[in-house]
């Protein structure tokens, strides 16, 4: 069974398949997984995972989880601190992707930020002098309320058209040719999505030809389980428990294999396909670490063909 096919499977099946096929199984690691699985099974009972009747990627457990977090998005010492600290790297990675384009510098960019949360990335993108507009969407009403409230504390973000928040899922966002985007961002989103393949396809449909789909997520490895589930959530509590669903993590290689299957995307290495691994070093911050994409947090960027629809 190919990876792309696996990704298209309903979530429960995909989990089972992925678990068998891809999880590295050193003795230590497989023992470590056991508790997470019980945890996931319990969560699974409450999730809405109907495979094909739903048109939305939204996972309702995730939505209610982020509701509970809404108030802490902009607290400098709060649970979103790691995301704030990562934000500069997001811009650096986007710049690296754009460096391969010979686009007109004066042409300002239209962003669509999917899963914008409290607006950490959306606000920052809207402030850049190279930005024309940012549309930021999230299915959780409370986080959109937080984002809008925070937007009002910065007059420059209230300029007409600069930053627009919409409480919607990507599948419900109107799609018309002249409203497409140069850059679509999915930061720390895919690991919360139950059916990534159709979700990513609907993202691509909103891209202009030559536009970039850029995201970040976490590779599914013993290391990432250890750092995100055990250390970050359970031991240090720097992110709240239940933030991550380790089984929904995707390997960079799986991402790339999926991208190669998409006729609208071009994926030549280092030009239309970019990846960058980053590691959080306590006391130092996020650092780019070559090769770390294989076992930890990573950014990916893939470009829509210039001749695509």
């Amino acid at each position, binding site marked *: 069974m190919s990876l792309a096919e696996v990704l298209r499977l309903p979530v429960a099946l995909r989990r089972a398949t992925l678990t068998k096929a891809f999880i590295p199984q050193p003795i230590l690691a497989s023992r470590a997984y056991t508790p997470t699985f019980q945890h996931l099974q319990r969560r699974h009972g409450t999730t809405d995972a109907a495979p094909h009747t739903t048109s939305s990627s939204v996972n309702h457990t995730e939505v209610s989880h982020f509701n509970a977090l809404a108030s802490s998005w902009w607290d400098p010492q709060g649970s979103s601190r790691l995301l704030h600290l990562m934000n*500069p790297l997001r811009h650096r990675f986007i710049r690296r992707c754009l460096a391969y384009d010979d686009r007109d510098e004066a042409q300002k960019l239209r962003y669509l930020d999917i899963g914008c949360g409290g607006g950490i990335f959306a606000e920052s993108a809207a402030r850049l*002098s190279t930005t024309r507009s940012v549309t930021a969407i999230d299915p959780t009403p409370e986080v959109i309320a937080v984002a809008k409230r925070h937007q009002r504390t*910065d007059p420059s973000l209230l300029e007409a058209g600069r930053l627009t928040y919409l409480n919607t899922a990507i599948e419900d966002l109107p799609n018309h040719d002249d409203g497409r985007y140069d850059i679509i961002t999915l930061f720390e989103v895919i690991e919360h999505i139950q059916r990534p393949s159709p979700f990513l396809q609907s993202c691509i449909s909103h891209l202009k030809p030559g536009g970039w789909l850029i995201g970040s997520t976490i590779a599914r490895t013993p290391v990432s389980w250890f750092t995100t589930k055990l250390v970050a959530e359970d031991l240090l509590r720097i992110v709240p428990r239940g933030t991550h669903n380790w089984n929904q993590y995707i390997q960079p290689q799986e991402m790339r294999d999926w991208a190669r299957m998409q006729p609208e995307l071009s994926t030549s290495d280092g030009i239309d396909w970019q990846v960058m691994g980053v590691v959080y070093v306590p006391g130092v911050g996020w650092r780019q670490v070559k090769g770390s994409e294989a076992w930890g947090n990573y950014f990916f960027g893939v470009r829509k063909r210039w001749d695509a629809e």
Partner: protein
Amino acid sequence: MALTRSVAFRKLLALPPDVRRRLWSSAVSVTPGKPDIYDVVCIGGGPAGLSFASALKAHSATRALKVALIDAQDITTSRTGNDGDAYSNRCSSLTPASSRFLRKIGAWDHINTGRVQPYHAMDVWDGVSGSKIHFDPRRYEAGSDYGVVATMCENGNLTAALLQRLQALTTGDAGAGSVCDILDKTKVESIELGPQPETEETVDLSQWPIVMTSQGQLAARLLVGADGANSPVRQFVDIPSHGWDYGQHGVVATLELEQTFAADEVRTAFQRFLPTGPIALLPLPGNKASLVWSTSPQHAAKLKQLPPNDFVAMVSAAFRLMPVDVNFMLSPDMAVTPSEELRWREPATSPSSTGLPSTFPWITGVQEGSIASFPLRMRHADTYTGHRVALIGDAAHTIHPLAGQGLNLGLADAEALANQITYGMEHGMDIGSSWCLDGYNSERWAANNAMLGVVDKLQKLYSASAGPVVWSRSLGLEAVERMSWVKGALMGVAAGAK
């Protein structure tokens, strides 16, 4: 607190035309009673504030920020630093790091270079033990600013250059799209937080500092306190500042020397540690030199009352005679004038007993009206940043002048904060948020704390006049003198090399 419109209008008319035009154009776009919104409001147009504003305007990533600079004094018309043969008593040693920064932001080109004086060597000696150390960096390859320890520059020359640079960057073709409103002769009356938003839809400035001035109200995305040692900004954000008074005063004056030096000659700075405090003679162009003498408040008061020839004799005595004699000459029991006393004591004092360097010049005069004194303090703010607030320069720290670092630390703060804002702009940060400002605080606080600590300990070490402390410190100076690599390293620190 809000000004009535007619008063505001009259004040506007009183402003210089270019400022008025800019203020007016922004004033009309703002609803009456509402504050005018700025990205950066910098209070204080001293060296720290002006270099910070110039750095912002000189960088492509930050030049479009809407900046206001406020100072209570007249900084636009009272240009000092070009006043013929007379030199201001407020001079500072610019370290090579400071000069590099000033070149980088294009301010150095506006400096009147005929009035600055680089020096290349330093003689430091201990008034009690006579041990000495000679810093001669030409033997230690001090990097790019080859051979220059520091450059003496009048504060007025520096601030005038910075102001010219700032105006060049914000007016004419070069300044298109780059605003820096200079509101001088404008006192900050109070700083308050913005009003609660009118509705759930309107802009919310309730966490923005609003600067209330006689010219109107300015809302600041980032409020920068470059407002000196008594910083109103620091008081507004309630950042405690800790430290102590040294119980000493700094006496400054512009002196005349017997010898006139050519512009390209090698020059030496001299500093002697006396039990009452250090005394330093720093070279200025030609036959001029700058005096900084830290001493007791009583001695400072006495010195300021002396006629010029006696003042000159007293300064010479402080460099040339034994510390007991210096003290005696300043005591109330002194029956003869310092000039008479010096005349017979000087030939009777052997330079080997005092450590006097053979090249020490004869001081022949003091510039009229240049003698002044100020109390010495050491203060350090607990932090340099808060929500939408940052402190730079003396507002953040006050340091003993013995190392001549006060102004240099302020320029380093200005550079670091401007760099941090550039980083913030390139990454879409709100430049008033802690995400942007934290980096500035962590970079500068620790560096300044180290410098404050070293200078404070030096001061304490050299204030003792007898016993083991003097004995060990003379060993220290002699040991350092013998170990050239330690000296080289020390020179690097003194010259502010990175």
